[in-house]
């Protein structure tokens, strides 16, 4: 039975561990010369894997449209969506989806107009 549970977990890319609750999420805009815009979902300091999905929408100041990048649904301790070569002054909006022990699913949103350099 336990083998089958782990076999099932291959569906979750090897996720076969108890998750923890210390997930964090943030967005950053206009970092490092104004070119880096990103949204990140991660578990630190425990570095435990969860299933995660992250989307990062970048819209230039005064613009209507914009573009988005995403980190695919994955089992990981860090889900990163961002780009490094957009020198437009942006507002970054993040979408963060993650699970917790297969019982809670969280959808969270972030907005950033600066770099939030205190975190990584």
């Amino acid at each position: 039975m336990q083998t089958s549970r782990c076999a099932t977990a291959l569906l979750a890319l090897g996720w076969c561990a108890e998750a923890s609750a210390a997930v964090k999420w943030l967005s950053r805009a206009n970092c490092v010369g104004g070119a880096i815009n990103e949204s990140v979902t991660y578990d630190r300091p425990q570095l435990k894997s969860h299933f995660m999905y992250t989307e990062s929408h970048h819209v230039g100041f005064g613009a209507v449209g914009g573009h988005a990048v995403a980190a695919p649904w994955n089992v990981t301790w860090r889900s990163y969506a961002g780009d490094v070569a957009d020198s437009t002054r942006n507002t970054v909006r993040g979408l963060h989806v993650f699970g917790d022990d297969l019982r809670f699913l969280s959808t969270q949103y972030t907005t950033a107009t600066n770099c939030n350099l205190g975190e990584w």
Partner: protein
Amino acid sequence: MSNHLNKCVSLALCMTCCLIPAAHATESVPSDSLVAKSGIPASELERARAEGFDMSRMQGSPGLHIVSLDKSPFVGAMAGQIKQEIAEHSANGVVAAPASEVLDMRNARRLAKGHVDRFTMFDKAYASVADIRPHLRYEPISVSGTILDGLPLVEATAAGGLKDGRWSGLSRSWDVAGLGFVQLSESEYRESGGSITMVKEWVNAEVNGHAATIKTSRDDEGVTRVALGWVTDSTVFRLDLQPVDGDALKGNQEALLAMARALGS
């Protein structure tokens, strides 16, 4: 190997391309779902669904959603795994797990600390609530009136979302003599319009009128974990216990529930 290659290709595409509006990707997506309100591309929906997670079933509206398993985002074998765990927990009071599946919270803390020590600027464990409070957007729930009151904190770390340099949540841990290693985590989700989905069949407890779920897991190496989670209209709470006596299934659960019900008093 080919799966790995596919994942790499998928990753590269997702990281470099603009997203296709989801409305074009899925014809039957409910208008209030997360997918309808975001730009999740069709390829990503398909990939997640193949791995047991139907993102088109994710709720787009804020707040708490308690949904039955057959309407939840879990599908296929993933849903089967959850169903099996619920049945096993209901019958035995514990879910058996393979070796190393249950997180050893004490060791995880030490190992993680060793890892992040290499990046000392990122190692942000605080010794007291007073120390971490300036970094938080909300006042942590009081532990006064619980058995945690007056016990020395092992550590406190930030959690949740970062906004204007402050976090929406935190995690605190204590060593409780005779009971075990306890970790209390909380995260506010209302301010940013977040949503939480709980699987209805896993709702097997209540904490001060709020739906709660409690689960004991034990792996082949004997590591036992009791996890209790509940959600208010503003905050997700979680209490985890790595008990001294892993065989005291009922006693450990009752101790955790009593602790949860006394929080904030």
